[in-house]
């Protein structure tokens, strides 16, 4: 089973990220679940979302406390959220940052293998707004290989309709442009 945790701010689409990857996994014939960290939704406040993906039925309704991969949607959230908390050995962290993996690892004492991508820049160019959830999924799919890229593109088309093109471009660019640390 692959367990994922997304860190973002209310309004950045962390929950949508978790849902899209779960929907794509189910479309691929896998079992998956996605859910928010339950609570009042406040724009700008730190939020988490979770997803699980497996080849068999998932029977677990607890929050993800030992993720295999973490996605950090907002570069500044590292100041206030401990994204490394509970990260499994061999875990991955996919971080939205314009800085290098070494720099942020040292500053925030990050654990795991880092995948970095300047998602703010990509999202601004492709979508016209700094909403990074779909962009970050490109880097996550590249890093984990858990879902077929095309199935996620299909989910983006369904979810975003006429806005899909920019999101798909951002997703694809992050897939190509992210820096994946060697394992």
């Amino acid at each position, binding site marked *: 089973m692959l367990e994922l945790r997304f860190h973002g701010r209310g309004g950045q689409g962390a929950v949508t990220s*978790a*849902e899209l990857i*779960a*929907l794509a*996994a*189910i*479309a691929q014939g896998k*079992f*998956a*679940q*996605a*859910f*928010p960290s*339950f*609570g*009042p939704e406040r724009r700008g406040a730190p939020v988490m979302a979770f997803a699980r993906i497996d080849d068999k039925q*998932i*029977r*677990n*309704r*607890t*929050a993800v*406390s030992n993720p295999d991969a973490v996605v950090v949607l907002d570069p500044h959230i590292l100041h206030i959220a401990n994204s490394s908390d509970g990260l499994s050995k061999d875990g991955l962290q996919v971080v939205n940052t314009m800085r290098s993996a070494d720099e942020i690892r040292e500053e925030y004492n990050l654990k795991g293998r880092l995948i970095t991508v300047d998602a703010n820049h990509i999202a601004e160019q492709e979508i016209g707004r700094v909403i990074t959830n779909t962009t970050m999924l490109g880097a996550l799919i590249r890093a984990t290989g858990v879902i077929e890229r095309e199935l996620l593109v299909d989910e983006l088309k369904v979810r975003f309709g006429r806005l899909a093109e920019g999101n798909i471009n951002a997703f694809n660019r992050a897939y190509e442009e992210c820096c994946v640390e060697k394992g």
Partner: protein
Amino acid sequence: MAERKGMEVSIAIAEAASACDVDCIAAYPITPQTHVVEHLSEIVADGDLDAEFIPVESEHAAMSCCCGCASAGARTFTATASQGLALMHEILFIAANLRLPMVMVVANRSLSGPISIWNDHSDVMTERDVGWVQVFAENGQEAVDMVIMGHRISEDKRILLPLMVNFDGFILSHMVEPIEMPTREEVKKFLPDFEPQQRLDIDDPITMGPVGMPVVYTEAKMAAEWAVRNSYEPMVEIMGEFEKEFGRKYKPVETYRTDDAEILLIMMGGIAETAMTWVDKVRDEGVKVGLVRFRMWRPLPVDDFKKAIAGAKVLGVLDRHFSPGGPGGPMAQEIKYMLYGQDHAPKIVETVVGLGGRDVNFSDFDQIFDRCKEVLGGAPIPPFELIQVRGGHYGKA
């Protein structure tokens, strides 16, 4: 078999109600039920369901409207949670005692105070005596299937009672997971048109809900008791027909790996899924433990429960609500009622977990199981215990 599709459980429940071709929905939005009624109002507004959606000013009005709709012979659906269910309280009795078929889903949530929007069973457990049929779903698929079966059960002329489908707030309601959604055509085959036994009709007037003088009230209550108790057999029959049509088997009481188990954990709702995974883990370590889950809660499936726990020495009961200053959790009380006076009755370890959204995880099951092992080894049975209390549990702090 329908294709598995990823859906939020609340959305799936709304789709299921729509597939049942309901005629009337009267509802007021409340967290964590909101997505159910929001989506239903969209389905109606889009013209995909020919139904009356009545946006009311409170849950008291919602349940009152539902009574009116069902009295007129309409297939009726609503949804609520927590304070909303509490606000319906007085009308719930009336719906049941007027024998009005309807289905209500309850996204189980704690009651205030302190204010909490999160999951436990305090809302529904304070409504045990209202005379409704009550079932608990463990996952999204079961919630969907229970809505479909619910209308058939509720409208069966041997039953004619309102039915409550309980599904945990957030840990079910807000979960995106795979669902096999029956089509409207498939549901139509299983669920015939509602044929009310009597209805309000201006051309053929009758009186519903008159005063029950002392000379008839007791008899009316006896009739209510019969109605709920006797709903058991037709319910089991309908679950069997559902299995034939859709291939998914539902029983009043569910067991998981209970063979040879001296200790069984007893619970209801969504935490049972996590518990099954925990059982798998400790069974792999060679520990004989199993799980029993109530799906049917009213009528209370006494014989099924006794059969499910036969041979067990200790039962660890996980309630999600309790009566302050009283005898502990409702499920444990009712299990004691079922087993009192029975020879070789198992010992009962009563616990309360997962209040107001506290995550229930493996370490909680470990702790309760350890308590059960101590009792199995001859230790005195502890009084009911609130698990997960920081700084020591009730009575020992």
